[in-house]
């Protein structure tokens, strides 16, 4: 209407932006963080933890940190050599009548062997020394305190041939 006074174009709402509101519009994440921090200060940060369900009466140590060894220097300057090699294990073969019988009949060679060698070591030693395959080893300790080993070769190998090669005949 013509008579009405033209009001200034001031909006009824207060659109002036205050500082706090400005920050909240620009960075809502910061505001939530601030709120969370305030809550933490007030209530503390420990979560309400649920009790672990224990299904056994026994308490077993849980898996703990295990760092691998990383020595600054080796304790031994040189690694130990394995002295129980084929030369030490097999002392000498036997050439008695019963031993020669066994060569022909049962395809076995008898050795006097180191007392502290076990059957698998004896088998290893024989196969290394004479390039044969060992089927079985039987051992006994003689009343003299020496170990005697009866080494049966696998059927592909002839004990007689090996005996010839060694020099037993």
């Amino acid at each position, binding site marked *: 209407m013509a008579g009405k006074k033209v009001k200034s174009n001031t909006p009824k709402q207060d659109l002036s932006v205050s500082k706090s509101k400005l920050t909240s519009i620009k960075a809502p994440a910061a505001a939530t963080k601030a709120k969370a921090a305030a809550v933490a200060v007030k209530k503390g940060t420990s979560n309400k933890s649920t009790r672990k369900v224990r299904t056994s009466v026994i308490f077993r140590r849980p898996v703990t940190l295990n760092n691998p060894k990383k020595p600054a*220097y080796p304790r031994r*300057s*040189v690694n130990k050599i394995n002295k129980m090699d084929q030369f030490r294990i097999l*002392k*000498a073969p*036997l050439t008695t009548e019963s031993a020669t019988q066994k060569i022909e009949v049962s395809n076995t060679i008898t050795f006097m062997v180191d007392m502290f060698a076990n059957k698998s070591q004896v088998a290893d030693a024989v196969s290394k020394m004479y390039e044969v395959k060992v089927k079985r080893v039987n051992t006994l300790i003689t009343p003299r305190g020496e170990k005697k080993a009866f080494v049966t070769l696998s059927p592909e190998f002839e004990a007689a041939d090996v005996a010839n090669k*060694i*020099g037993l005949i």
Partner: protein
Amino acid sequence: MAEKTKAFELRTKNKTQLLEHLKELRTELSSLRVAQVKSPNPSKLAKIGTVRKAIARVLTVFNQTQKTHLRAVYSKKSSSKIPTDLRYKKTRAIRRRLSNKQAKSVTLRVAKTATNFPQRVFAVKA
């Protein structure tokens, strides 16, 4: 095989050569042992002794040279980083004693008094 293995000749050889030589000697020894059992021949029996000593010589040279090389390698490092078998052995008790430096160490105060007030020696004039 040579008449007599000599250590100084062995020292000229390198590691692999020594180990090969050792293997030859040991196979020879094993064959001699077979002969010892089967048909004792006095010449062969005498040879057993020389072969055994030769083996000992080779092993001694091998181990000695190995150790000296290792010591040379580790001599550049600080004494706390050397393998324990290359350190001085002495006795267990001696190794746990205070070192000379530690035993002689003295507070600054004591050192100063010692320098400023040493033990005086006087002589009575006849």
